[in-house]
């Protein structure tokens, strides 16, 4: 039995792009006590033809796998399996239509007041705790790999610094080779007041961590809209699609419990 409850809000805006390739989704928060909660945000890529298809697929397939699959007791494994199911579908789609696309995935699975997280690609996942921002995931970009390679002496420093593909991702939904996901092994214990924000790079590329921290400190889930507003106010030329999925973890007060009883 969980002693916490979760509220959730997702917001998106295409920015100055003609198409929205970000997508987000979550399972029913009312079922959190019984089944846990899965929340996913995905940023599609691959040009006009396929980007939005892969992000939508990632969200839909992960939710389907989560809802249909028999209970996997370990939330970290349950989340991994949901991702694996979505990836399998995505790779099938790539093959059957000969599509060249992909998507990032940032996802969290909350159960019994603990949280598993998983990330592939360059979207970001933050935990706001005690008012302070902590980035939970590591972006998987070539620049990171090259810098480590240069430090360890198997890539030339100049090559690492000048590589024009530093921003490209080393792993994403349709990466056919098996590359490691970034995920936690032991579920993270949640405390009342925690906020979890999943954002696409349209948000993290425009707002600094400091700005995000300030905005996410707004009460409850109102930070989601505030973040989108703040990105738009920057009027950045060629602003990428932006999306945020915000979860607020709160104490179940007597009032909350009563509400729930009445609803039943």
């Amino acid at each position, binding site marked *: 039995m969980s002693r916490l409850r979760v509220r959730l809000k997702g917001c998106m805006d295409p920015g100055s792009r003609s198409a929205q390739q970000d997508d987000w989704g979550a399972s029913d928060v009312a079922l959190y006590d019984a089944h846990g909660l899965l929340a996913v945000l995905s940023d599609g*890529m*691959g*040009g006009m033809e396929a*980007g939005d298809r892969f992000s939508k697929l990632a969200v839909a397939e992960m939710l389907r796998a989560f809802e249909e699959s028999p209970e996997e007791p370990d939330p970290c*494994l349950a989340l*991994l*399996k949901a*991702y*694996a199911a979505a*990836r*399998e579908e995505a790779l099938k789609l790539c093959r059957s239509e000969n599509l*060249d*696309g*992909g998507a990032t995935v940032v996802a969290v699975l909350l159960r019994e007041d603990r949280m598993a997280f998983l990330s592939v*690609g360059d979207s970001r996942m933050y935990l706001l*705790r*005690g*008012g*302070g*921002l*902590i*980035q939970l995931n*590591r972006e998987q970009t*070539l620049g*990171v*790999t*090259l*810098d*480590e*390679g240069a*430090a*360890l002496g*198997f*890539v030339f420093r100049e090559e690492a610094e000048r590589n*024009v*593909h530093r*921003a*490209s*991702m*080393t792993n994403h939904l349709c990466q056919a*080779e*098996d*590359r*490691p*996901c*970034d*995920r*936690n*092994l*032991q579920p*993270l*214990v*949640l*405390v009342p*007041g925690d906020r979890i924000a999943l954002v696409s*790079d349209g948000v993290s590329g425009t707002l600094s*961590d*400091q700005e995000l*921290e300030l905005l996410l400190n707004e009460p409850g889930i109102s930070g989601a809209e505030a973040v989108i507003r703040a990105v738009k106010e920057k009027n950045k030329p060629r602003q*990428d699609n932006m999306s945020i999925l915000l979860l607020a973890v709160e104490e179940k007060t007597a009032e909350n419990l009563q509400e729930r009883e009445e609803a039943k």
Partner: protein
Amino acid sequence: MNEENAMLTLPEEVLPTAGAEPLAAQETDAPEETVAPEESAQSEVVAEVTAQPGPVDPEPRSGLNPLLIVAFAVIVVAAVIAVIAGVLRRRRRDNEAPSGPVPTEPIRTGEEPKNVRKPGPRRMDPMQRMPTTAAAGAQNGSSGSVVEGYSFGYAQTIGKRENQEDSYCISRPDAETMRTRGLLAAVADGIGGLNNGQVASGTVMHNMAMRFDQQNPERPAADRLLELAAAGQEDVLRINRQGDHCGTTLVSVLITTEGAVLLSVGDSRIALFRAGALIQLNREHVLGRESDEAAALGAGASVEGRRRGAITAYLGRENLRQMDRTLRPMRLMPGDRLLLMTDGVFNTLSDEEILHQMDRPPQEAADALIAMVDEKQIPHQDNATIVIVGLD
């Protein structure tokens, strides 16, 4: 995201090692998968070499003699200081009250092995020179003092093992160093039979603290930490090239005015205590996790049993490709505690037990936690080391 580049395939030479490779086991309680199958044969060689502490230059050059003499003298001084440090530390562990703050605390490293072969100086790299006495693991009792708002504590126990293979280091916590360079804290859990683990973790910690003092402090903290870890990898590889087979985990944090950056290799842990709860900040490089992932993604089978704990990345591993690190500083908040631990701590104590000590000052908390590890009297208790850095 960068659409045009997003689909780029990595050139082969920079690929991270993809599959899970059962490479090494932790510690000696899993002998079926130790790093070196031929370990017993090697340990004899090691004992011989380590009995004569002296710099070994992998690349003999002319004009080495004066350097050798100076280096040897420095090592002797360092060893003496290490012995004194060990005595002082033992006394401190026997509940002797720590002495008051001392104006400048030299960098200290944990359990500096007395008969470690220090890696020889590297060509054309001033950072690799032999340690100065100031950087050689001296000890005094100023721990627990507060500098620039930060306080720290450290403690370790040998557990039920023959050797202490854990090492740790904390950079000079004087206001000047902290303002210009920041605060470095690191813990290393050595891997290998006999003395080897001690050699690896001791050397890496020692050199890391020394190099930290010589780095260009203008560079981003994440880059500096990566550079220190990579130099540590080079140190252990150099030791291994001379016939040893050893390795070490590394967990490290570098705190500057901007916040904390982290770097981890292996199965030690970095946790953040904030708002009454612990968050593990690093990812352990263990076979169980990697094989689960391979199995879920249809590329292998999950490994069961003890092999799940085998570590897949450590300093000293040839072709080390994975490090777990943060890229941007995380702002620390008043009341935060950063904990760096070897598995001897977190395999013995639960998160709850650790949490309950977090309202005490870092040094008290570190002492209490290590005392708890000892009190549990666990058979084969592994070496346990903890460093705690707190912001008040």
